[in-house]
Protein backbone atom coordinates (compact mmCIF):
# COMPACT_ATOMS: atom_id res chain seq x y z
CA UNK A 1 0.00 0.00 0.00
CA UNK A 2 1.19 3.46 -0.83
CA UNK A 3 2.74 5.10 2.26
CA UNK A 4 0.82 8.29 1.70
CA UNK A 5 -2.45 6.39 1.59
CA UNK A 6 -1.50 4.55 4.77
CA UNK A 7 -0.78 7.83 6.52
CA UNK A 8 -4.16 9.13 5.43
CA UNK A 9 -5.86 6.02 6.75
CA UNK A 10 -4.17 6.37 10.12
CA UNK A 11 -5.06 10.03 10.14
CA UNK A 12 -8.68 9.25 9.40
CA UNK A 13 -8.74 6.66 12.18
CA UNK A 14 -7.46 9.17 14.71
CA UNK A 15 -9.97 11.70 13.45
CA UNK A 16 -12.82 9.27 14.04
CA UNK A 17 -11.62 8.64 17.58
CA UNK A 18 -11.35 12.36 18.12
CA UNK A 19 -14.88 12.88 16.87
CA UNK A 20 -16.23 10.27 19.28
CA UNK A 21 -14.38 11.84 22.18
CA UNK A 22 -15.69 15.27 21.26
CA UNK A 23 -19.24 13.94 21.22
CA UNK A 24 -18.71 12.46 24.68
CA UNK A 25 -17.36 15.79 25.93
CA UNK A 26 -13.89 14.35 26.46
CA UNK A 27 -12.44 17.50 24.90
CA UNK A 28 -8.94 17.09 26.35
CA UNK A 29 -8.79 13.58 24.88
CA UNK A 30 -10.19 14.86 21.59
CA UNK A 31 -7.44 17.50 21.31
CA UNK A 32 -4.74 14.88 21.79
CA UNK A 33 -5.99 12.47 19.13
CA UNK A 34 -6.91 15.20 16.63
CA UNK A 35 -3.35 16.52 16.87
CA UNK A 36 -2.13 13.01 16.14
CA UNK A 37 -4.45 12.82 13.17
CA UNK A 38 -2.89 16.00 11.77
CA UNK A 39 0.60 14.65 12.42
CA UNK A 40 -0.10 11.85 9.99
CA UNK A 41 -1.86 13.97 7.40
CA UNK A 42 -1.92 17.75 7.73
CA UNK A 43 -4.55 18.05 5.02
CA UNK A 44 -7.12 16.17 7.12
CA UNK A 45 -9.34 19.25 7.06
CA UNK A 46 -12.13 17.78 9.16
CA UNK A 47 -9.68 16.99 11.95
CA UNK A 48 -8.28 20.52 11.90
CA UNK A 49 -11.69 22.14 11.81
CA UNK A 50 -12.88 19.91 14.65
CA UNK A 51 -9.75 20.78 16.62
CA UNK A 52 -10.63 24.44 16.19
CA UNK A 53 -14.16 23.76 17.39
CA UNK A 54 -12.89 21.94 20.44
CA UNK A 55 -10.50 24.77 21.27
CA UNK A 56 -13.38 27.22 20.86
CA UNK A 57 -15.55 25.18 23.18
CA UNK A 58 -12.76 25.15 25.77
CA UNK A 59 -12.67 28.95 25.64
CA UNK A 60 -9.39 29.07 23.70
CA UNK A 61 -10.67 31.31 20.90
CA UNK A 62 -7.20 32.37 19.74
CA UNK A 63 -6.13 28.76 19.24
CA UNK A 64 -9.39 28.05 17.42
CA UNK A 65 -8.84 30.97 15.05
CA UNK A 66 -5.31 29.77 14.32
CA UNK A 67 -6.50 26.28 13.34
CA UNK A 68 -9.30 27.56 11.12
CA UNK A 69 -7.06 30.04 9.34
CA UNK A 70 -4.49 27.31 8.70
CA UNK A 71 -7.27 25.03 7.51
CA UNK A 72 -8.46 27.65 5.03
CA UNK A 73 -4.93 28.14 3.78
CA UNK A 74 -4.49 24.42 3.18
CA UNK A 75 -7.90 24.00 1.58
CA UNK A 76 -9.55 27.10 0.19
CA UNK A 77 -12.63 25.50 -1.37
CA UNK A 78 -15.55 23.78 0.37
CA UNK A 79 -14.18 24.38 3.81
CA UNK A 80 -16.34 24.75 6.91
CA UNK A 81 -13.62 26.85 8.51
CA UNK A 82 -14.68 29.76 6.35
CA UNK A 83 -18.14 29.68 7.88
CA UNK A 84 -16.73 29.42 11.43
CA UNK A 85 -14.48 32.42 10.89
CA UNK A 86 -17.30 34.48 9.40
CA UNK A 87 -19.56 33.56 12.31
CA UNK A 88 -17.00 34.88 14.79
CA UNK A 89 -16.36 38.02 12.80
CA UNK A 90 -20.08 38.71 12.45
CA UNK A 91 -20.71 38.44 16.19
CA UNK A 92 -20.33 42.01 17.40
CA UNK A 93 -17.85 42.32 20.21
CA UNK A 94 -17.27 38.58 20.56
CA UNK A 95 -13.67 38.54 19.43
CA UNK A 96 -12.92 41.49 21.63
CA UNK A 97 -14.53 39.74 24.60
CA UNK A 98 -12.56 36.58 23.91
CA UNK A 99 -9.35 38.54 23.62
CA UNK A 100 -10.04 40.32 26.89
CA UNK A 101 -10.74 36.98 28.54
CA UNK A 102 -7.40 35.59 27.41
CA UNK A 103 -5.61 38.73 28.57
CA UNK A 104 -7.32 38.55 31.98
CA UNK A 105 -6.47 34.89 32.33
CA UNK A 106 -2.83 35.57 31.51
CA UNK A 107 -2.78 38.52 33.91
CA UNK A 108 -4.36 36.38 36.64
CA UNK A 109 -1.80 33.66 36.10
CA UNK A 110 0.89 36.28 36.45
CA UNK A 111 -0.66 37.58 39.66
CA UNK A 112 -0.95 34.08 41.08
CA UNK A 113 2.70 33.36 40.32
CA UNK A 114 3.70 36.63 41.99
CA UNK A 115 1.68 36.00 45.17
CA UNK A 116 -1.05 38.52 44.30
CA UNK A 117 -3.70 35.84 44.67
CA UNK A 118 -6.50 38.20 45.68
CA UNK A 119 -6.15 40.18 42.47
CA UNK A 120 -6.00 36.94 40.49
CA UNK A 121 -9.25 35.79 42.06
CA UNK A 122 -10.96 39.12 41.39
CA UNK A 123 -10.01 39.08 37.73
CA UNK A 124 -10.97 35.46 37.23
CA UNK A 125 -14.29 35.74 39.04
CA UNK A 126 -15.58 38.41 36.72
CA UNK A 127 -14.12 36.76 33.65
CA UNK A 128 -15.70 33.31 34.19
CA UNK A 129 -19.10 34.99 34.59
CA UNK A 130 -18.78 36.16 30.98
CA UNK A 131 -17.13 32.96 29.74
CA UNK A 132 -18.13 30.10 32.03
CA UNK A 133 -16.87 27.55 29.52
CA UNK A 134 -13.29 28.83 29.79
CA UNK A 135 -12.01 25.62 31.36
CA UNK A 136 -8.47 26.75 32.19
CA UNK A 137 -9.79 29.81 33.95
CA UNK A 138 -12.24 27.75 36.00
CA UNK A 139 -9.43 25.38 36.97
CA UNK A 140 -7.11 28.19 38.02
CA UNK A 141 -9.86 29.86 40.02
CA UNK A 142 -10.63 26.53 41.71
CA UNK A 143 -6.97 26.12 42.60
CA UNK A 144 -6.88 29.58 44.11
CA UNK A 145 -10.03 28.91 46.13
CA UNK A 146 -8.62 25.61 47.38
CA UNK A 147 -5.42 27.34 48.35
CA UNK A 148 -7.58 29.54 50.56
CA UNK A 149 -9.50 26.46 51.73
CA UNK A 150 -12.75 27.61 50.18
CA UNK A 151 -13.57 24.19 48.79
CA UNK A 152 -17.23 24.93 48.17
CA UNK A 153 -16.49 27.69 45.70
CA UNK A 154 -13.76 25.58 44.18
CA UNK A 155 -16.28 22.82 43.68
CA UNK A 156 -18.63 25.17 41.81
CA UNK A 157 -15.84 26.20 39.42
CA UNK A 158 -14.84 22.60 38.82
CA UNK A 159 -18.44 21.64 38.21
CA UNK A 160 -18.66 24.28 35.47
CA UNK A 161 -15.40 22.98 33.98
CA UNK A 162 -16.67 19.41 33.97
CA UNK A 163 -19.84 20.42 32.16
CA UNK A 164 -17.62 21.51 29.26
CA UNK A 165 -14.76 18.97 29.46
CA UNK A 166 -16.02 15.97 31.36
CA UNK A 167 -12.89 13.88 31.67
CA UNK A 168 -10.21 16.49 32.09
CA UNK A 169 -7.66 14.88 34.45
CA UNK A 170 -6.79 18.10 36.27
CA UNK A 171 -10.44 18.94 36.86
CA UNK A 172 -11.13 15.44 38.15
CA UNK A 173 -8.18 15.53 40.50
CA UNK A 174 -9.16 18.90 41.93
CA UNK A 175 -12.75 17.78 42.25
CA UNK A 176 -11.67 14.78 44.29
CA UNK A 177 -9.78 17.06 46.65
CA UNK A 178 -12.66 19.53 46.88
CA UNK A 179 -15.16 16.76 47.60
CA UNK A 180 -12.90 15.29 50.21
CA UNK A 181 -12.92 18.60 52.03
CA UNK A 182 -16.57 19.52 51.65
CA UNK A 183 -18.29 16.12 51.72
CA UNK A 184 -17.52 15.31 55.36
CA UNK A 185 -20.28 17.42 56.83
CA UNK A 186 -22.92 15.81 54.64
CA UNK A 187 -21.52 12.37 55.28
CA UNK A 188 -21.63 12.96 59.03
CA UNK A 189 -25.15 14.26 58.77
CA UNK A 190 -26.22 11.20 56.86
CA UNK A 191 -24.49 9.02 59.39
CA UNK A 192 -26.23 10.73 62.32
CA UNK A 193 -29.18 8.68 63.25
CA UNK A 194 -31.80 8.98 65.91
CA UNK A 195 -29.97 8.09 69.14
CA UNK A 196 -33.14 7.01 70.99
CA UNK A 197 -33.81 3.30 70.97
CA UNK A 198 -37.26 1.69 71.56
CA UNK A 199 -37.49 -1.08 74.20
CA UNK A 200 -40.37 -3.47 74.48
CA UNK A 201 -42.86 -2.72 77.17
CA UNK A 202 -43.33 -5.27 79.85
CA UNK A 203 -46.71 -6.23 81.38
CA UNK A 204 -46.05 -4.64 84.73
CA UNK A 205 -44.93 -1.34 83.30
CA UNK A 206 -47.02 1.59 84.47
CA UNK A 207 -47.89 4.35 82.12
CA UNK A 208 -47.85 7.55 83.94
CA UNK A 209 -50.10 10.18 82.44
CA UNK A 210 -48.53 13.59 82.05
CA UNK A 211 -49.24 15.58 85.20
CA UNK A 212 -51.34 18.69 84.93
CA UNK A 213 -50.18 21.79 86.67
CA UNK A 214 -52.09 24.96 86.97
CA UNK A 215 -50.26 28.10 85.82
CA UNK A 216 -50.07 30.68 88.57
CA UNK A 217 -49.70 34.42 87.96
CA UNK A 218 -46.07 34.40 88.99
CA UNK A 219 -45.36 31.61 86.65
CA UNK A 220 -46.98 33.53 83.81
CA UNK A 221 -44.82 36.55 84.52
CA UNK A 222 -41.75 34.36 84.69
CA UNK A 223 -42.73 32.73 81.45
CA UNK A 224 -43.13 36.10 79.76
CA UNK A 225 -39.81 37.31 81.10
CA UNK A 226 -38.15 34.12 79.91
CA UNK A 227 -39.73 34.63 76.51
CA UNK A 228 -38.40 38.17 76.32
CA UNK A 229 -34.90 37.07 77.30
CA UNK A 230 -35.03 34.29 74.72
CA UNK A 231 -36.15 36.78 72.11
CA UNK A 232 -33.27 39.11 72.87
CA UNK A 233 -30.81 36.23 72.78
CA UNK A 234 -32.17 35.02 69.44
CA UNK A 235 -31.94 38.49 67.95
CA UNK A 236 -28.45 39.00 69.33
CA UNK A 237 -27.01 35.68 68.27
CA UNK A 238 -28.96 34.88 65.13
CA UNK A 239 -30.55 37.90 63.50
CA UNK A 240 -27.89 40.53 64.11
CA UNK A 241 -25.00 38.48 62.68
CA UNK A 242 -27.06 37.70 59.58
CA UNK A 243 -27.78 41.37 59.02
CA UNK A 244 -24.17 42.23 59.72
CA UNK A 245 -22.96 39.54 57.32
CA UNK A 246 -25.34 40.81 54.68
CA UNK A 247 -24.03 44.34 55.06
CA UNK A 248 -20.44 43.14 55.07
CA UNK A 249 -21.13 40.97 52.05
CA UNK A 250 -22.64 43.91 50.19
CA UNK A 251 -19.67 46.09 51.04
CA UNK A 252 -17.30 43.30 50.12
CA UNK A 253 -19.00 43.05 46.74
CA UNK A 254 -18.69 46.80 46.27
CA UNK A 255 -15.06 46.68 47.33
CA UNK A 256 -14.47 43.77 44.95
CA UNK A 257 -16.03 45.70 42.09
CA UNK A 258 -14.05 48.76 43.07
CA UNK A 259 -10.80 46.78 43.15
CA UNK A 260 -11.54 45.24 39.79
CA UNK A 261 -12.25 48.67 38.33
CA UNK A 262 -9.00 49.93 39.84
CA UNK A 263 -7.19 46.96 38.35
CA UNK A 264 -8.73 47.58 34.92
CA UNK A 265 -7.84 51.24 35.10
CA UNK A 266 -4.38 50.29 36.29
CA UNK A 267 -3.94 48.05 33.25
CA UNK A 268 -5.17 50.88 31.00
CA UNK A 269 -2.84 53.34 32.70
CA UNK A 270 0.10 50.97 32.22
CA UNK A 271 -0.75 50.67 28.53
CA UNK A 272 -1.15 54.44 28.15
CA UNK A 273 2.11 55.07 29.99
CA UNK A 274 3.87 52.68 27.67
CA UNK A 275 2.39 54.45 24.63
CA UNK A 276 3.32 57.81 26.11
CA UNK A 277 6.87 56.63 26.64
CA UNK A 278 7.09 55.41 23.05
CA UNK A 279 5.64 58.68 21.78
CA UNK A 280 8.07 60.71 23.92
CA UNK A 281 11.00 58.75 22.59
CA UNK A 282 9.81 59.24 19.02
CA UNK A 283 9.35 62.95 19.66
CA UNK A 284 12.84 63.29 21.14
CA UNK A 285 14.29 61.48 18.18
CA UNK A 286 12.42 63.68 15.73
CA UNK A 287 13.47 66.85 17.57
CA UNK A 288 17.07 65.70 17.62
CA UNK A 289 17.01 64.97 13.89
CA UNK A 290 15.41 68.33 13.18
CA UNK A 291 17.98 70.13 15.33
CA UNK A 292 20.74 68.36 13.47
CA UNK A 293 19.19 69.27 10.14
CA UNK A 294 18.74 72.91 11.07
CA UNK A 295 21.85 73.65 13.13
CA UNK A 296 24.59 71.42 11.85
CA UNK A 297 26.78 73.41 9.44
CA UNK A 298 27.18 70.37 7.23
CA UNK A 299 23.48 69.67 7.30
CA UNK A 300 21.14 69.49 4.34
CA UNK A 301 19.36 72.73 5.13
CA UNK A 302 22.68 74.63 5.38
CA UNK A 303 23.65 73.37 1.93
CA UNK A 304 20.36 74.55 0.47
CA UNK A 305 20.92 77.91 2.07
CA UNK A 306 24.34 78.18 0.43
CA UNK A 307 22.92 77.21 -2.94
CA UNK A 308 20.38 79.98 -2.58
CA UNK A 309 23.21 82.42 -1.78
CA UNK A 310 25.19 81.23 -4.81
CA UNK A 311 22.21 81.88 -7.05
CA UNK A 312 21.78 85.30 -5.49
CA UNK A 313 25.47 86.03 -6.26
CA UNK A 314 24.96 84.93 -9.86
CA UNK A 315 21.94 87.23 -10.11
CA UNK A 316 24.13 90.08 -8.87
CA UNK A 317 26.90 89.07 -11.31
CA UNK A 318 29.20 88.65 -8.33
CA UNK A 319 31.23 85.73 -9.56
CA UNK A 320 33.79 86.07 -6.82
CA UNK A 321 31.25 85.55 -4.06
CA UNK A 322 29.58 82.77 -6.02
CA UNK A 323 32.89 80.95 -6.47
CA UNK A 324 33.82 81.27 -2.79
CA UNK A 325 30.45 79.98 -1.70
CA UNK A 326 30.63 77.21 -4.24
CA UNK A 327 33.75 75.63 -2.76
CA UNK A 328 32.09 75.60 0.69
CA UNK A 329 28.96 73.80 -0.57
CA UNK A 330 28.48 70.02 -0.41
CA UNK A 331 26.51 69.29 -3.56
CA UNK A 332 26.31 65.57 -2.74
CA UNK A 333 23.48 66.11 -0.23
CA UNK A 334 21.42 68.25 -2.58
CA UNK A 335 19.39 65.40 -4.05
CA UNK A 336 16.03 67.11 -4.41
CA UNK A 337 14.70 66.28 -7.88
CA UNK A 338 13.72 69.86 -8.65
CA UNK A 339 17.09 71.39 -7.67
CA UNK A 340 19.23 68.72 -9.30
CA UNK A 341 19.24 70.62 -12.57
CA UNK A 342 20.17 73.91 -10.93
CA UNK A 343 22.97 72.28 -8.92
CA UNK A 344 24.27 70.59 -12.04
CA UNK A 345 24.29 73.87 -13.99
CA UNK A 346 26.20 75.64 -11.19
CA UNK A 347 28.82 72.88 -11.05
CA UNK A 348 29.37 73.02 -14.79
CA UNK A 349 29.69 76.79 -14.81
CA UNK A 350 32.11 76.79 -11.92
CA UNK A 351 34.23 74.10 -13.56
CA UNK A 352 34.59 76.38 -16.57
CA UNK A 353 34.53 79.87 -15.11
CA UNK A 354 34.79 79.61 -11.36
CA UNK A 355 38.36 78.46 -10.84
CA UNK A 356 40.00 81.25 -12.89
CA UNK A 357 38.16 83.80 -10.77
CA UNK A 358 39.60 82.32 -7.59
CA UNK A 359 43.04 82.13 -9.16
CA UNK A 360 42.75 85.81 -10.06
CA UNK A 361 41.80 86.60 -6.48
CA UNK A 362 44.85 84.67 -5.35
CA UNK A 363 47.08 86.74 -7.67
CA UNK A 364 45.71 89.93 -6.21
CA UNK A 365 46.31 88.74 -2.66
CA UNK A 366 49.86 87.68 -3.52
CA UNK A 367 50.51 91.10 -5.06
CA UNK A 368 49.36 92.69 -1.82
CA UNK A 369 51.82 90.48 0.04
CA UNK A 370 49.08 88.51 1.75
CA UNK A 371 50.54 85.03 1.32
CA UNK A 372 47.98 83.16 3.44
CA UNK A 373 45.04 84.62 1.62
CA UNK A 374 46.68 84.03 -1.75
CA UNK A 375 47.35 80.39 -0.89
CA UNK A 376 43.77 80.02 0.29
CA UNK A 377 42.36 81.32 -3.00
CA UNK A 378 44.73 79.15 -5.05
CA UNK A 379 43.67 76.09 -2.98
CA UNK A 380 40.03 76.88 -3.61
CA UNK A 381 40.75 77.20 -7.29
CA UNK A 382 42.37 73.77 -7.18
CA UNK A 383 39.27 72.38 -5.45
CA UNK A 384 37.26 73.25 -8.51
CA UNK A 385 39.93 72.33 -11.04
CA UNK A 386 42.56 70.01 -9.62
CA UNK A 387 44.40 70.00 -12.92
CA UNK A 388 45.24 73.71 -12.78
CA UNK A 389 49.06 73.39 -12.56
CA UNK A 390 49.38 77.12 -12.67
CA UNK A 391 47.66 77.41 -9.33
CA UNK A 392 50.04 74.88 -7.79
CA UNK A 393 53.04 76.81 -9.13
CA UNK A 394 51.60 80.07 -7.79
CA UNK A 395 51.16 78.53 -4.35
CA UNK A 396 54.82 77.57 -4.40
CA UNK A 397 55.80 81.08 -5.48
CA UNK A 398 53.64 82.67 -2.80
CA UNK A 399 55.38 80.61 -0.11
CA UNK A 400 58.78 81.31 -1.58
CA UNK A 401 58.16 85.05 -1.69
CA UNK A 402 57.06 84.86 1.91
CA UNK A 403 60.35 83.15 2.82
CA UNK A 404 58.79 79.75 3.45
CA UNK A 405 61.15 77.76 1.23
CA UNK A 406 60.28 74.28 2.55
CA UNK A 407 56.61 74.71 1.86
CA UNK A 408 57.36 76.22 -1.53
CA UNK A 409 59.61 73.30 -2.49
CA UNK A 410 56.84 70.86 -1.64
CA UNK A 411 54.60 72.41 -4.26
CA UNK A 412 57.43 72.73 -6.79
CA UNK A 413 58.24 69.08 -6.14
CA UNK A 414 54.61 68.21 -6.76
CA UNK A 415 54.80 69.73 -10.25
CA UNK A 416 58.18 68.17 -11.04
CA UNK A 417 57.16 64.66 -9.92
CA UNK A 418 53.58 64.49 -11.11
CA UNK A 419 53.44 66.92 -14.02
CA UNK A 420 56.92 66.71 -15.59
CA UNK A 421 55.59 67.50 -19.05
CA UNK A 422 53.75 70.66 -18.10
CA UNK A 423 54.92 74.12 -18.97
CA UNK A 424 55.57 74.80 -15.29
CA UNK A 425 57.91 71.85 -14.68
CA UNK A 426 61.03 73.64 -15.84
CA UNK A 427 60.14 76.77 -13.89
CA UNK A 428 59.49 74.69 -10.81
CA UNK A 429 62.95 73.08 -11.11
CA UNK A 430 64.48 76.48 -11.51
CA UNK A 431 62.73 77.87 -8.49
CA UNK A 432 63.53 74.84 -6.40
CA UNK A 433 67.13 74.88 -7.53
CA UNK A 434 67.35 71.15 -8.32
Amino acid at each position, binding site marked *: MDTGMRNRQISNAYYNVGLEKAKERDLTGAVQVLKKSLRFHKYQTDARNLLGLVYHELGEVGAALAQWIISLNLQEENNLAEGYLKALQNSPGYLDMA*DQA*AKKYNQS*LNYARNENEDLAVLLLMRMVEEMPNYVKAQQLLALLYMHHEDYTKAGRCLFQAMKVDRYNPLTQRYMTIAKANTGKAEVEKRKLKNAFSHRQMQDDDIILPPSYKENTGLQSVLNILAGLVMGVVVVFFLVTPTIRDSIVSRYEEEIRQGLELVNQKSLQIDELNRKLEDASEAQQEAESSLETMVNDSGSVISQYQRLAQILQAYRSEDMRTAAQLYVETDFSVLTDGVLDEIGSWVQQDMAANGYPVLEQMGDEAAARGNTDQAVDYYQKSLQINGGNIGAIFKIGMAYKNAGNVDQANEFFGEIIMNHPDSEYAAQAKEQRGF
Partner: protein
Amino acid sequence: MLDFEEELKNFQPSMEIGNVEDAIGREDLTDMTDLMVELLNNK
Protein backbone atom coordinates in the same frame (compact mmCIF):
# COMPACT_ATOMS: atom_id res chain seq x y z
CA MET B 1 -2.42 17.71 49.73
CA LEU B 2 -2.05 20.51 47.20
CA ASP B 3 1.31 22.13 46.53
CA PHE B 4 0.14 25.47 45.13
CA GLU B 5 3.42 26.42 43.46
CA GLU B 6 3.72 23.00 41.83
CA GLU B 7 0.12 23.12 40.63
CA LEU B 8 0.64 26.54 39.06
CA LYS B 9 3.18 24.94 36.75
CA ASN B 10 0.32 23.03 35.12
CA PHE B 11 -1.10 26.30 33.81
CA GLN B 12 0.19 27.88 30.60
CA PRO B 13 -0.74 31.29 29.16
CA SER B 14 -3.61 31.49 26.65
CA MET B 15 -3.22 32.72 23.09
CA GLU B 16 -4.52 36.27 22.72
CA ILE B 17 -6.19 37.27 19.46
CA GLY B 18 -3.33 39.63 18.66
CA ASN B 19 -0.85 36.74 18.80
CA VAL B 20 -2.74 34.49 16.37
CA GLU B 21 -0.66 35.63 13.39
CA ASP B 22 2.63 34.82 15.12
CA ALA B 23 1.26 31.49 16.30
CA ILE B 24 0.27 30.52 12.77
CA GLY B 25 3.75 31.43 11.57
CA ARG B 26 5.31 29.23 14.26
CA GLU B 27 2.97 26.29 13.70
CA ASP B 28 4.85 23.17 12.65
CA LEU B 29 2.85 21.68 9.79
CA THR B 30 5.23 18.80 9.14
CA ASP B 31 3.36 15.54 8.82
CA MET B 32 4.46 11.94 8.27
CA THR B 33 4.37 12.32 4.51
CA ASP B 34 6.76 15.29 4.69
CA LEU B 35 9.10 13.33 6.94
CA MET B 36 9.12 10.37 4.59
CA VAL B 37 9.78 12.56 1.58
CA GLU B 38 12.67 14.15 3.47
CA LEU B 39 14.06 10.74 4.35
CA LEU B 40 13.80 9.59 0.76
CA ASN B 41 15.50 12.73 -0.50
CA ASN B 42 18.33 12.30 1.99
CA LYS B 43 18.88 8.76 0.72
